[in-house]
């Protein structure tokens, strides 16, 4: 019927995980690591947090597997899209880099 209530996970534990992961994310950007390593770490942490929210707050852990696949599809599409867009981006970059170098002064920092 309308209200078959599934059991509630320990929400406060999830809250603390999310809070701690946020602090870790901010700590990571101050770490003396290569830019690429920081990027990979940040992506992993963000995905971890998103998974926690989806699995426990949105109760995906207690839903059917197929619903999980519906939920994951946009992530796959978005990831693929980056690679679809990159060739265009690089083509534009090739055209503009030469122009910019000759017309603009070096950035003031």
């Amino acid at each position, binding site marked *: 019927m*309308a209200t078959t209530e599934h059991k509630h996970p320990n929400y406060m534990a999830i809250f603390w995980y999310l*809070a701690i992961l*946020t602090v870790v994310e901010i700590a990571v950007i101050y770490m003396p690591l290569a830019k690429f390593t920081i990027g990979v770490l940040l*992506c992993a*942490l*963000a995905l971890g947090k*998103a998974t926690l929210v989806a699995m426990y707050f949105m109760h995906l852990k207690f839903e059917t597997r*197929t619903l999980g696949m519906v939920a994951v599809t946009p992530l796959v599409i978005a990831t693929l899209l*980056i690679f679809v867009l990159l060739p265009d981006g690089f083509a534009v970059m090739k055209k503009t880099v030469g122009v910019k170098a000759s017309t603009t002064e070096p950035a003031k920092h």
Partner: protein
Amino acid sequence: MSQAASIHGAVEPAESPLTPESWGKLGMWIFLAGDAVGFGTLLAGYGAMRATSADWPSPYDVLGINLTALMTFLLICSSVTMVKALEWLGKGDKIRAQNFLFYTALGGAIFVSLQAYEWTHLIHRGLHINGNPWGASLFGTSFFLVTGFHGLHVTGGVIYLLSILRVVAKRPQPAASYNAVEIAGLYWHFVDLVWIMVFTFMYLL
């Protein structure tokens, strides 16, 4: 009461295959999957533009993260109050559920206010939708587009939550509004989830 009975279960022609509790939940999930493609497209576009730009400013230096870290924390807190509202409703405590729903909406309203403050501050410093003093003009364009799209979702969410609050208050049986609150919760957590992504990709990276 008879009206509530006709809304829940009785008129549904068959059981929803993916979400046996209700068709509404499946509907919300499918809407969210579509919405996620929208956000995914914006973020992927942002990533591709940034990766192929020669003079993309460092977001961390331009935007600052102290205020946004606070906003992230606020949104996580509002997600917790949302699940608490559902939990209390499940236990049959309508008043506590209504209070927690109100806190959730309040958290969302404060989030949007902080975002308005942040935007004002950044615009005064020269970050405009068509250019900025730090480098690629698309930096400002994509920043306002993505955070603005998310801010609109939060604003819509606050209105949604307040109307659900009214539904809970009007229905005498707490169980009668459980489904509606759970579906609203799905939307609200999705907005939180998207902000986790936006915060990481547009502020920290």
